[in-house]
């Protein structure tokens, strides 16, 4: 028995002025006990067949994109590639849940979401090829640069959504994060700011089980990552991250909720990183083959094929057409990346400031002289 005996509530009536007690009921904010699924449930029949076919197409093309990019790293044609193999459902559903006017804030593992959003597949890879930091135009594509520092893009999404709301524009921002990113301070600050500002923003956490080598059990002791939402006063949703139509439904709901002034949502998608962290990583050092094999049976493309076929919604023509489109893209990637990149060393000084400082002008002159001397030696 302690002095705090909960069987006898304190006699103090409520709260003193200025102090803040519990202000809302957390129950409606809690995620479902089990992840939301559409495949294998009655919800599948209610889903638009065209949407299912488009999701399937993007999954198949996306898988090939991941495979080809991974191969290109082995051939030394990309500097590095953090593959989203196994996570394609999250990638394509995120892109498809957004409208033209909305903004995507991807992390470094979300190149496929960027491509699925409509960014040129080769421009999306300049960062990882190593010839430019960001190859696409963020404003024209409403897609932020791939964020390499973890969770730092989350507050950007909040700020952009906040500015759009102030302007009266029906724009939603979607920030993509990983399970490891939820440990970062920026994740916390972004969710808190989003909630306080009622910003039209959606946070999608792809929980793929590992932050490089560290499993989720060592990353968080929360009941689920989706439960973290409750602490900020926003709803958390838990969804099967390999069920593309389920992801699309949950994301679309959250996007429309944000667009209509309902505020932010945190979504945790349960998925798995089939490949190592990057081509430079050795996943056999920290996880068993059996675990990977089990997740291969829960592969997002496999699930779609199995359930669409069972429902009579998948025909050979579609399968062939998607495969052909995937091969076309892979061929284009090989053709482009086997050619040497065009580089302009003088561009290093072009965009540090709107106007180069006198010191940068001097350094640019120095590099130009070095290049001229090199050229002379070569002739």
């Amino acid at each position, binding site marked *: 028995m302690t002095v705090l005996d909960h069987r006898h509530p304190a006699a103090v009536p409520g709260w003193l002025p200025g102090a803040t007690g519990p202000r809302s009921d957390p129950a409606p904010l809690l995620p479902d006990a089990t992840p939301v699924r559409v495949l294998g449930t009655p919800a599948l029949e209610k889903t638009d067949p065209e949407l299912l076919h488009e999701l399937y197409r993007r999954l198949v093309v996306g898988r090939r994109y991941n495979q080809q990019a991974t191969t290109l790293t082995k051939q030394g044609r990309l500097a590095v590639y953090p593959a989203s193999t196994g996570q394609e459902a999250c990638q394509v559903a995120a892109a498809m849940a957004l409208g033209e006017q909305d*903004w995507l804030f991807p992390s470094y593992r979300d190149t496929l979401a960027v491509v699925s959003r409509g960014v040129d597949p080769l421009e999306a890879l300049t960062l990882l090829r190593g010839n*430019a*930091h*960001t190859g696409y*135009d*963020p*404003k024209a594509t409403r897609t*932020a*640069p791939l964020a390499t*520092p973890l969770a*730092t893009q*989350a*507050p*950007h*999404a*909040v*700020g*952009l*959504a*906040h*500015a*759009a709301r*102030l*302007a009266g524009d029906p724009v939603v*921002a979607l920030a993509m994060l990983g399970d490891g990113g939820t440990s970062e*301070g*920026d994740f916390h*600050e*972004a969710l*808190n*700011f989003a909630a*306080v*500002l009622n910003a039209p923003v959606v946070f999608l956490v792809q929980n793929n089980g590992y932050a490089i080598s560290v499993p989720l059990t060592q990353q968080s002791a929360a009941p689920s990552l989706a439960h973290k939402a409750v602490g900020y006063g926003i709803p958390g949703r838990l969804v099967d991250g390999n069920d593309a139509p389920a992801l699309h439904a949950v994301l679309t709901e959250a996007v429309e909720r944000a667009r209509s002034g309902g505020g932010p949502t945190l979504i945790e998608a349960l998925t798995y990183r089939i490949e190592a962290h990057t081509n430079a990583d050795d996943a056999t050092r920290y996880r068993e083959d059996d675990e990977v094999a089990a997740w291969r049976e829960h592969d997002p493309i496999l699930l779609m094929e199995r359930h669409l076929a069972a429902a009579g919604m998948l025909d050979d023509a579609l399968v062939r057409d998607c495969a052909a489109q995937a091969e076309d893209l892979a061929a284009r990637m090989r053709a482009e990346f086997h050619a040497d990149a065009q580089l302009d060393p003088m*561009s290093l000084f*072009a*965009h*540090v*400031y*709107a106007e180069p*400082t*006198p*010191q940068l002008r001097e350094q640019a002159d120095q590099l130009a002289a070095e290049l001229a001397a090199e050229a002379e030696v070569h002739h």
Partner: protein
Amino acid sequence: MTTATPVRGARTASMAQALNSALRDAMQADPAVHVLGEDVGQLGGVFRITDGLTKEFGADRCLDTPLAEAGILGTAVGMAMYGLRPVVEMQFDAFAYPAMEQLFSHVAKMRNRTAGRLPLPITIRIPYGGGIGGVEHHSDSSEAYYTHTPGLHVVTPATVADAYGLLRASIASDDPVVFLEPKRLYWGKTEFDPALPVEPIGRAVLRRTGRSAVLITYGPSLPVCLEAAEAARAEGWDLAVLDLRSLVPFDEQTVCEVVRSIGRAVVVHEASGFGGAGAEIAARVTEKCFHHLAAPVLRVTGFDIPFPPPMLEHHHLPGVDRILDAVARLQWED
């Protein structure tokens, strides 16, 4: 603590009032200018620099944020991406450190990362420096962290007129500006006219001409240098005082012209010396003006110690005597 009141036309004002006027005028001139930070709304900021802005422009334009500096700056990045021109207040020098990753990895690099497609016109106002009797974490001179980061402009006014003009110029800049406000100069009043044309950032100004040696300084050390120059007359030295006003861009041309014409120079700042702005300036001046120098360029700086408790800070901060000691070591016998 004095409360800043709106300033109109030529008049006597404190630096705090001039900064307040600059924010108000910038917000009036451009609806894209938004102020955000901790306690900037109803309270008007702990130094009252944002006094009255929420009342005049509404809480959306001058926003009290949750207490989280990375969140504030990260949110400002997103706002700038959408076309706004955010002005962020960091409450104190050392309280800006949680925002360093946003500043270094995103604010400073976004223009470069996107080949010029996504410039971030963000002004980050930071009250900095000691001399106000602040307890620990309230008196840091953090300028070298910022000057060492390509992509940032680093500006620091030392006069009331510059506080107004440089803040207007910083807010108008399409590049991110770290705007360092010498908090110990907030309340000194002088005449200034906000109607005078705004000077671009990046230009040093000679505050006092002299033939013996030049004191190169900025921000909170300017009044100390002017006092030292006055005291030096008794020693027979005629000291010039150069106010850099902007550390990045660094006005190398003006600095070198002055040093070449005088031949002796001392760099003065209150930040620690090792790896500080003064080290860069001394090295640069030596490289560019070597044959015009009669003595090595000396530095008078704070010691290489964490900022002291308030009762001891006067031992750390460069004063008139320490400056004159350095001047005495400029090899006059040669």
